[in-house]
């Protein structure tokens, strides 16, 4: 590196540059948070959805599944499971989810195993409400197709 470019100059670029871009990042964050209500469907967060999110977390679902592409890549994406398995019909989806959760573990030799989390009917219903709410989020048109 050229001698005329000194350590002091490098240091100033580091401090100046990172503070400048961090401030831009904060400004964009404020704007994003302000815009979020247009996309996040927050008016439909019911108590059931809230309980469902806690159940989602309490059973570490993200340890196998992805939700909007984030999580583990061992089991299917669940942002759009309502559309995939319920076809957009709440009654059908809730019936499916109840049957699915109670059928675990499937014990098919060699197949990836989903544990049984021993949720009661009310809890499975809450989880379904959370997943239904999630499916209606506007994540900029992700995922590309129904398979997630």
């Amino acid at each position, binding site marked *: 590196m050229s001698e005329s470019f000194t350590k002091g100059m490098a240091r100033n670029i580091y401090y100046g540059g990172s503070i400048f871009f961090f401030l831009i990042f904060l400004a964009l964050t404020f704007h994003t948070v302000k815009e979020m209500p247009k996309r996040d469907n927050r008016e439909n967060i019911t108590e059931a959805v809230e309980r469902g999110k806690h159940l989602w977390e309490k059973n570490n679902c993200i*340890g196998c599944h992805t939700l*909007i592409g984030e999580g583990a890549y061992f089991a299917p994406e669940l942002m759009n499971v309502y559309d995939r398995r319920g076809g957009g019909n709440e009654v059908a989806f809730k019936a499916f989810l109840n049957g699915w959760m109670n059928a675990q573990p499937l014990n098919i030799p060699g197949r990836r195993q989903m544990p049984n989390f021993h949720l009661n009917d009310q809890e499975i219903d809450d989880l379904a409400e959370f997943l239904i709410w999630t499916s209606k989020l506007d994540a900029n048109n992700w995922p590309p197709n129904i398979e997630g």
Partner: protein
Amino acid sequence: MNTLKYQSQAVAKPYFIFAMILFVGQILFGLIMGLQYVVGDFLGGIIPFNVARMVHTNLLIVWLLFGFMGAAYYLVPEEAETELYSPKLAIILFWVFAAAGVLTILGYLLVPYSTLADITFNELWPTMGREFLEQPTITKFGIVIVCLGFLFNLGMTILKGRKTAINMVMMTGLIGLAVFFLFAFYNPTNLALDKYFWWFVVHLWVEGVWELIMGAILAYVLIKVTGVDREVIEKWLYVIIAMALISGILGTGHHFYWLMTPEYWQWVGSIFSALEPLPFFAMVLYAFNMVNRRRREHPNKAATLWALGTAVMAFLGAGVWGFLHTLSFVNYYTHGSQITAAHGHMAFYGAYAMIVMTIISYAMPKLRGIGEANCNKAQVVEMWGFWLMTVAMVFITLFLTGAGILQVWLQRLPESGEALSFMATQDKLAIFYWLREISGVIFLLGLISYLTSFFITEKKAQA
């Protein structure tokens, strides 16, 4: 023989040893998961995949933190030219952190996660069950307390001593680490906000402040093993971390493409994260440049190899493999696929696991009173460990990338109705997963070789 410049540097030793023990655990659980990818019911009822993954990723994070802390305790006193403010506090915090870490891992393994949430009163302040932040809330508080004590100890040391660029950068990185971790306590009901601010921990750690820590450790080791003038090395350090933060802060946007966010993040994220490989490329140039311009022949060849290796592998894993899927129109199809996993593995190994092994390689002979370097035989075995682990990681990454490309092809690119389902796609990827698992076993052999090198002493070598 005492080979430490400042006696209090000795507190780094238990941190390094414990980091290595956790590293072994991380790899063993990685192998379990790798097998579960193809033999789905392996250990099904005993260690479900989600538990194994939590152990694998949390052990990684914790052993890297132990490594960073050990590195800080080792290099900060020497840079500041003064003894550590309180060696006793450093040892107390070691035991607190180690106990909290072990208890948390045992909690993951011995009781169902929901029970762990109940017995740690998660409902009072729910923070559990989010990727990488699975620790019980009480453990998170423990981490904050350990970090505060650690930063206080280092801060007091630097205040009374010399304030070198390396120390200031290291300190900034560590303070940033602690500050951004606080977002782990923010878990709103609204998933849109939850996910957005979750990245303030995850991205601003690994593509932000951790790069400062890596840069500082690398600069320190390069000064020591090459004898190149500090002014030159510190100038490079500032240039590299300037590029890292200028690209990396707005580069966070590459995680915001598919959240409930405005579309401009697709532009901001693509442009700035496309620049993220630059600091890593500069790091490669710099490491090789400094070693070529060395003014001394340091006897610790292994440490030099690690220093060069971490720069190259960080560039490949974080830089090249990050760029592969960072542009928004690519990421639309690759987001959350095995390509992400490929990138994650090589980036973490190259940038962070290897920088910790770099400082361990440099510091351990001195901490153990052996001298400037281990005996030749020990270094050869250590270098076998380096090559086996590094080559194995290259293959793990290549096989996961193959799996990812095929996954995108089968599951993501076709229209709904024509695309293969997730599980059907996974069956088609089995060959890649088997090859990945074999590479993982080679990685373990490399790790065993690496650890064996610590037990080879001069006497045995002569016998």
